[in-house]
């Protein structure tokens, strides 16, 4: 956490292509909703919501952004709609229950280790705690039979990343081409790019 993120394509923004043939109508509709209609809290309670936000801040820290990519609201929305992803690994309950259980377990881990709520921990301790779960060193007693590492990687982290990297800001920061229909690409070779792509990686210039 000490070192911050150094963007390789600092002035690139895929949203600038909004009115170009790179965007078709449905893509504009989908992104308009994502950018303007950030869901309100419905499923999680206030405590769970704050905890999840703190976790998301560790999983994808965005200290440089004045307007960070919202993640928690979209997780809450998916849970409100009771969305599933097609796989329920053994030991992991149905989505709504899994998230509630997982959040409770992380809170319990924090209480057990630091005698305080996860949200109140400093960033280093929060990160270290999540690393322990990620590395398979969680305390099973807090997890009520749910495999902690599996929940962390296959449910929690995957969902957070799926939301973050679906956001135009995140796609711009990695120099992804972004929406591309009807217009795709012409120049396919290494170090070749179309004018509507990100300019060359500044580290290579």
């Amino acid at each position, binding site marked *: 956490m000490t070192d911050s993120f150094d963007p390789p394509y600092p002035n690139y923004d895929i949203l600038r292509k909004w009115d170009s*043939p790179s965007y078709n109508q449905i893509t504009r509709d989908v992104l308009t909703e994502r950018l303007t209609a950030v869901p309100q809290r419905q499923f999680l309670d206030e405590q769970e919501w704050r905890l999840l936000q703190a976790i998301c801040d560790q999983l994808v820290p965005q200290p440089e952004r004045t307007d960070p990519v919202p993640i928690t609201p979209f997780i809450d929305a998916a849970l409100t709609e009771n969305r599933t992803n097609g796989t329920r690994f053994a030991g992991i309950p149905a989505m709504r229950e899994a998230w509630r259980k997982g959040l409770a377990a992380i809170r319990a881990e924090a209480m057990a280790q630091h005698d305080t709520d996860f949200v109140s921990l400093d960033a280093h301790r929060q990160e270290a705690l999540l690393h322990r779960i990620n590395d398979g060193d969680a305390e099973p007693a807090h997890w009520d039979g749910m495999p902690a590492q599996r929940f962390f990687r296959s449910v929690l982290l995957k969902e957070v990343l799926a939301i973050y990297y679906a956001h135009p800001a995140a796609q711009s920061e990695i120099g992804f081409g972004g929406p591309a229909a*009807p*217009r*795709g*690409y*012409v*120049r396919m070779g290494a*170090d*070749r*790019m*179309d*004018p*509507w792509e990100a300019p060359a990686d500044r580290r290579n210039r």
Partner: protein
Amino acid sequence: MCLLTDSAMKNAPDCRRFTCAPSSIGSPAPSDRGTETGLTTGRVLGALGLAAAGFLVLRAAERNRLQPQKQADRSRRADAAIQMGRASSLLAGSVFADSAMEHLRGGYHRRAMYVAPAMAGATLAASTSSRARLSRRNADLRDGIYLAGIATGLTGLGFHLWNISKRPGGATRMNNFFYAAPIGAPGALVASGLYGLAAGRLVRAPQMTSRQEGRLVGSMTALNILATSAEAGLLHFRSAFQNPVMFLPVIAPPAAAVALAAAVARPGRQMIKIARAACGTTVATGLAGAAFHVWGVHRMHGGWHNWRQNLLAGPPIAAPPSFAGLGLAGLGALDLLEMEAQP
């Protein structure tokens, strides 16, 4: 040579060409060759070239005013020169636009890639220059430009071969012939330069007989047509001949090349007539090809709305006019051969 030409003069009903020639200087004259109807658009495209060549003809005519028995001969050579000039212009124009686009696709990642459109542009300017003078100095300058264009084309050929060879699999992979730098394309610049040189030669003092000139240009043109057709065939094969009209450039121009070669071998009136029709068809093929390619771009996903992608990824609009240029060169060669044609 004079003897031959004179006797051909007497037999040929082509004296009208002499009277037609000056009228073609300012504006396109109505053609008296039915097979050349497709030239109308070609004339528009080659208008500048026509004007330039016309000037040369006028100067030539003025200069030789004292030798009226040779005037007809000279003007018929000039007629052929006009065709060569137009051929050179059309080819240069095609290479100019096509290489500018294709090298844009390549991102001009090497500075050398600017040379192709630049030299094609210079060749185009030389072959269409309205300030053309017959002064030795200007003629030499233009020849110099043509030679530089030829050298550029040959160098480009080398570059394109090298580009193919450095891709994975090199020359053993069809993918590289389909999608790496096209080997045939720079050849059009070479051809343009050669026709420019030929046009210049034709308006100066003859160094060989018209038959020799006609055969030389005719053979060269037949080969050029075959090479260009091979290139079109390769790229249309790459596109799986998805539209039957894509077979046109691999049928019509090669037929013209064969007819032209036959006329070169035996310049009889009938054969010349056939070859003239075939070359006219080649001109028409080239012009129609450009129109088909415009339509092809429209049929790409996103159509003209997505022009930044489709002008580059779609069929190249500037490429087919090469055929028109070669068809004109063929007609010019036939003009020369006809001067000696036997009834």
